């Protein structure tokens, strides 16, 4: 039974004592009595399965409000312990999403976990390492609305077979991106924004049905793209040295240092199989077109000769 098949009040009741959701590849038990949590979970996780059987969830988290009458705060708990300082109560749902990302990043060492967005087409994945201010989340969201499978907007999970594992969850957008995506895609389901977070105004976008339908199949890494939004910049894509890509991605590793030699071998295997690009863009349409040329939907494999560069000219790779 999916979350959407519950009424909001049913979901609220379940959430108050602990609601377990299948958040592939993990299961998450979330407990909260906060109304915004119920509303947003109902909205964002509508297509996710509620776990019926009595199973042990991977992550046991809760969101509680403190200090009801004076500057109320929200606190995130993992295994009954609060790993972070509290945030203003209005950021409770955002804190849940950030907190759950932290859970994945810190407690799933079977995967090499990098800070990166991952999208895919026909089980061929493109990894976009996450440098702040690059516009990665907006781009990821845009690609998702253009029939790309969202594996994650934050965390690349690489398994021992060097495959990317999907972990689709609501996409986090900031500031102007929220309006941009809403305007470009009227069907997009977006939460009420939370203001004055340390990242500015934050909202979350419901992941596409397509992304959830495809989540079980592992993806093969095909390309690594370092996107950078630059205002009024014509689209420019340059190939970069795989060694540079490897080192840069290692820096974006959450548990790279924990896996040690395994991390290096796994990341090397991934990079070996990928073409690596730096992409500068200012137009989302042009960027989407470029990605489409990298992995056209009609063809199952990356064809090197058909990459579009500046001014639409073909790059030879």
């Amino acid at each position, binding site marked *: 039974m999916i979350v959407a098949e519950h009424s909001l009040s049913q979901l609220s009741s379940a959430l108050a004592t602990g609601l377990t959701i299948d958040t592939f590849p993990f*299961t998450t038990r979330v407990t909260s009595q906060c109304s915004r949590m119920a509303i947003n979970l109902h909205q964002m996780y509508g297509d996710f399965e509620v776990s019926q059987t*009595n*199973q*042990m*969830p*991977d992550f*046991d988290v809760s969101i509680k409000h403190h200090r009801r009458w004076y500057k109320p705060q929200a606190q995130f708990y993992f*295994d*009954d*312990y609060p790993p972070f*300082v509290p945030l203003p109560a209005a950021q409770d749902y955002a804190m849940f999403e950030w907190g759950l990302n932290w859970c994945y990043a810190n*407690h*799933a*060492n*079977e995967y090499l976990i990098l800070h990166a967005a991952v999208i895919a087409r026909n089980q061929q994945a493109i990894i976009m390492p996450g440098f702040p201010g690059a516009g990665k989340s907006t781009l990821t969201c845009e690609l998702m609305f253009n029939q790309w499978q969202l594996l994650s907007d934050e965390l690349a999970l690489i398994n021992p077979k060097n495959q990317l594992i999907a972990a689709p969850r609501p996409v986090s957008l900031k500031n102007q991106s929220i309006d941009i995506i809403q305007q470009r895609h009227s069907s997009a389901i977006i939460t009420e924004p939370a203001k004055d977070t340390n990242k500015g105004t934050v909202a979350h976008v419901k992941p596409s049905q397509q992304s959830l339908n495809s989540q079980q199949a592992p993806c093969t890494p095909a390309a690594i793209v370092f996107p950078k939004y630059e205002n009024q910049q014509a689209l420019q894509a340059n190939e970069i040295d795989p060694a540079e890509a490897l080192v840069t991605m290692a820096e974006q590793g959450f*548990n790279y*240092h*924990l*896996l*040690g030699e395994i991390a290096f071998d796994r990341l090397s295997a991934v990079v070996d199989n990928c073409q690596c690009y730096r992409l500068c863009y200012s137009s989302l349409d042009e960027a989407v077109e470029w990605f489409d040329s990298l992995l056209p939907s009609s063809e199952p494999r990356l064809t090197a000769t058909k990459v579009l560069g500046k001014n639409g000219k073909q790059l030879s790779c």
Partner: protein
Amino acid sequence: MLTLCQVLTQKTGPKLSINEWDSLVRQARKSLLLAQLAETAQSSETTQLGGNGLPPQVSRHLASARTLANAHQRAVKWEFDRIESALLSVNTKIILLKGAAYLSQQMPHAQHRLYGDIDILVQSDQLEVVEERLKWAGWATTQHSAYDEKYYRRWMHEIPPLQHAKRASNLDLHHRILPPTARITVAGEPLIENAVQSKHYPFFHTLAPADQWLHSAAHLFCEGEADHGLRDLFDLLQLAQHFLNIDPNYLHQVVNRSNQLGTSRLTHYALRYIKYFLWPELSDEHANACMDKPHHLLSALMDKIFIRTLRPQHLSTQLPGTRAAAKLLYFRSHYLRMPWKLLIPHLIKKSLSQDKAAAVG
């Protein structure tokens, strides 16, 4: 006996349900014992815990904890290398304490342990040169107010914690194992004198076997935080079993040494609570042989505190009154650390500075 303790000490019991595993994994993780649980679950011959019989939701988390523990070990061994490099020219015993000592002696449980920082002990007249060499090698004093700095250097058994500028690893440099102002204390010299050279890491020393137990017991039973009491008790159990294999009189030596140095109250508590949580077969003779036993009423109060604060700090196994017990533990640790004329101004000063921090933050 707590289920987690039963499993860790490989006492056989009924097959665990998935709900029990759920609680067990969370209790173990909270207590920094998840990697140890992974090891016990793997090596146990009992069918209910056999490697192939573990539910996948459980084994993936145990495996993840193992990876973390392996990474910690690698990191600590590298720190040994860097500390040696920094202190090569210093001609004094560099004594590893607690976790670092267990790892350097290649004790089996050290492989499944997490390490927060490295503790070393040196002679007090060598403190300045050791600190200086460490600073040249990249360790820096962590941010402290002028008050904290003065407090540490004047009243404590260690200097303010050092953190490496590049690796962010933590190093605690001690000149004694207990503060000089503490109600129960011992000078550094008797322990340093008896320290033995490490077989596997010859640059370093470790405390003599009995002194290692004495120190770990003293550390745990002067502690004010209830984070990982069970882990520390487990360490003490492993220490005892490791050295008893070598010398069956080990616990007698521990008690004699504690009596000699004046820490037998703390050793008494350690023996009492290891028996309660982890080792019911332990003979009472050792705890009874401690000279400074608490009055039976005080003992009853300590029981109420310690059976709450030493257990895993997870809701699934929490007893009523744990918060009160944790507060009492905190006050007790400060009471032990300083006489009243120092303690009261200190607590006032600390609570005022915390209020200021809370108002700003």
